[in-house]
């Protein structure tokens, strides 16, 4: 009898001492959830395959994309009732690097959302040299202090073919005033205390069209130091995430 009692006691102590804390506490009802935005890329109707000269841009040139690196910031998630939830972070994305292909937003309040808005680039309060941590990626996006400091908002590079041969192009965007506003009012999603993943697809072709075609031979293969070229990119960029 005593053995039974002690065995019981032994097992009781064993289980009691080893149980995990979470087993006993009732899971609280979460009032917020996590949202992952996965970024993908296409060129008009095709999905984007980098380093291949197989896409035709609006100006009529065959072209490739060898580099597409950019920042997104100032996210605002807009609820169906019109209220909004802003996030102040700046996020680096790289179309060729899976490590920089998504953003995880933690603690987004539960509710039905009708869309979101954000900037490509950094607003003037953030676009300052060394505002961002000194990572290799951020360092390579630096915009020299002698030209105003801060960061490149985007580097879109690759090759294109014209009547004289194959040439490279560098579409760089930066400097205060050249952020690109993205507004996606019809991108509904619901957060209910769990983890949700949504996808945003950039149509790279849109950087070079709508409202105005960017022609590498006329507008230049190089947007840097060229305000009108950068303005064209900025204005074309508003709808790159429209699907």
């Amino acid at each position, binding site marked *: 009898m*005593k*053995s039974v009692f*002690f065995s019981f*006691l*032994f097992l009781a*102590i*064993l289980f009691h*001492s*080893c149980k995990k804390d979470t087993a006993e506490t009732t899971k609280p009802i979460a009032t917020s959830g996590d949202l992952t935005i996965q970024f993908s890329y296409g060129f008009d109707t095709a999905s984007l395959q980098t*380093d291949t000269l197989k896409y035709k841009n609006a100006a009529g040139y065959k072209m490739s994309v*060898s580099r597409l690196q950019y920042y997104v910031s100032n996210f605002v998630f807009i609820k169906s009732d019109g209220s909004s939830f802003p996030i102040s972070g700046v996020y680096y994305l790289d179309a060729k690097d899976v490590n920089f292909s998504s953003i995880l937003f933690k603690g987004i309040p539960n509710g039905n959302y009708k869309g979101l808005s954000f900037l490509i680039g950094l607003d003037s309060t953030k676009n300052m040299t*060394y505002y961002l941590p*000194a*990572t*290799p990626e*951020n*360092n*390579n996006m*630096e915009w*020299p*202090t*002698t*030209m105003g400091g801060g960061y490149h908002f985007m580097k879109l*590079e690759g*090759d294109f073919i014209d009547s004289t*041969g*194959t*040439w*490279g*192009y*560098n579409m760089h965007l930066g400097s205060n005033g050249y952020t690109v506003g993205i507004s996606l009012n019809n991108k509904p999603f619901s957060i209910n205390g769990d983890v949700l993943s949504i996808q945003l697809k950039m149509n790279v072709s849109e950087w070079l069209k709508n409202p105005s075609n960017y022609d590498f031979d006329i507008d*230049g*293969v*190089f947007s*840097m*130091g060229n305000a009108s070229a950068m303005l064209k990119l900025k204005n074309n960029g508003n709808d790159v995430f429209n699907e």
Partner: protein
Amino acid sequence: MFLMNNYMRRYYFITAIILALSIACRNDKATTAIVTQIDSPLTPYTLKTPPHFSKPYLPDYNPLTVEGVALGRRLFYDSILSSNGRSCSYCHHQSLGFMMKNSDIGLDPNYYPNIPALINEAWNPYFGWDGVFPDADHIALVDFGPMFFNSNIVNVITKLKADPTYPSMFKRVFPGQDVFVDGVIQEKVAFAVAQFARTIVSSNSKFDRYMMGLEQLTPQESNGYDLFMTEKGDCFHCHGSMLFTDNGFHNTGLDSIFEGYNRGRFNVTGLQKDMGLFRTPTLRNCALTAPYMHDGRYQTLDEVIEHYNSGVHKTATIDPIMTLPGKEMGLLLSTQQKADLKAFLLTLTDTTIFTNPLYGRP
């Protein structure tokens, strides 16, 4: 007797409970602590990251330790590894900024690439002018070959084993392994040397002091800085950030025909788009690390600047940076501007690494 039995039974159960608890509840941390205690933990080496440098690339499989760096430093300066009296320091000479003209040591500059200066290697993601080495930890494996150390590995092992301190140093850094085996020793030497090489940090140039507000640039240096960092000179796209390299690969128009080593990154990837591309070298200490370019074709900074000013060859893989509209004929810098640019490059000189005892022969 009964009482005794009862007492013993109780004692048995209590012991069993304690034992069961200790087994059931032990965590991995406790186990790890016991194991490492037996192995006597190595002392982590903290690599000081200079202001605005990014996080260094430090692999998990070869972490920096005080003991590993010390072993690597000793090996770096020791001709025990070679059959011809050479050590790593033979080509990477501290008083020459951890490099050497290959012509000065009998390497045919027409065949061997320019010896790179070993500074700030911890921030490099690729090694070799064409990026053929994906990490720093295996580069020294090449050095045992006939063109550098011409090592007889059996002899190297015999000499290392006979040394009064190497066996204990290797055992300490690479515990639980018999390192004195052909095929193993080479990797362990390379790992230790890589650890030492990663500790060589250059961040004490006039430009660094200027960035910290401790010193002013002269008007000429300042003009050069502006040329460097704007589209006029446009050096910064590749030689930007405090590392003065983007760690990328570019064709800067050195050649119009690509043969042999001059094919650059193409030799590694086999991709046509990589024809003639080479890794951007840091410009830190460039004033003291002539000759220049992957093949050491230029002997002075003036020649390098002149290349960008007027000597660029346009081919299919040339970097678009080199063909900026309006600069089809080169940068078109004036004599004064070229001198200003050079004056700025001279501010990147850090002579402290030449004499820093931490990097010297132990």
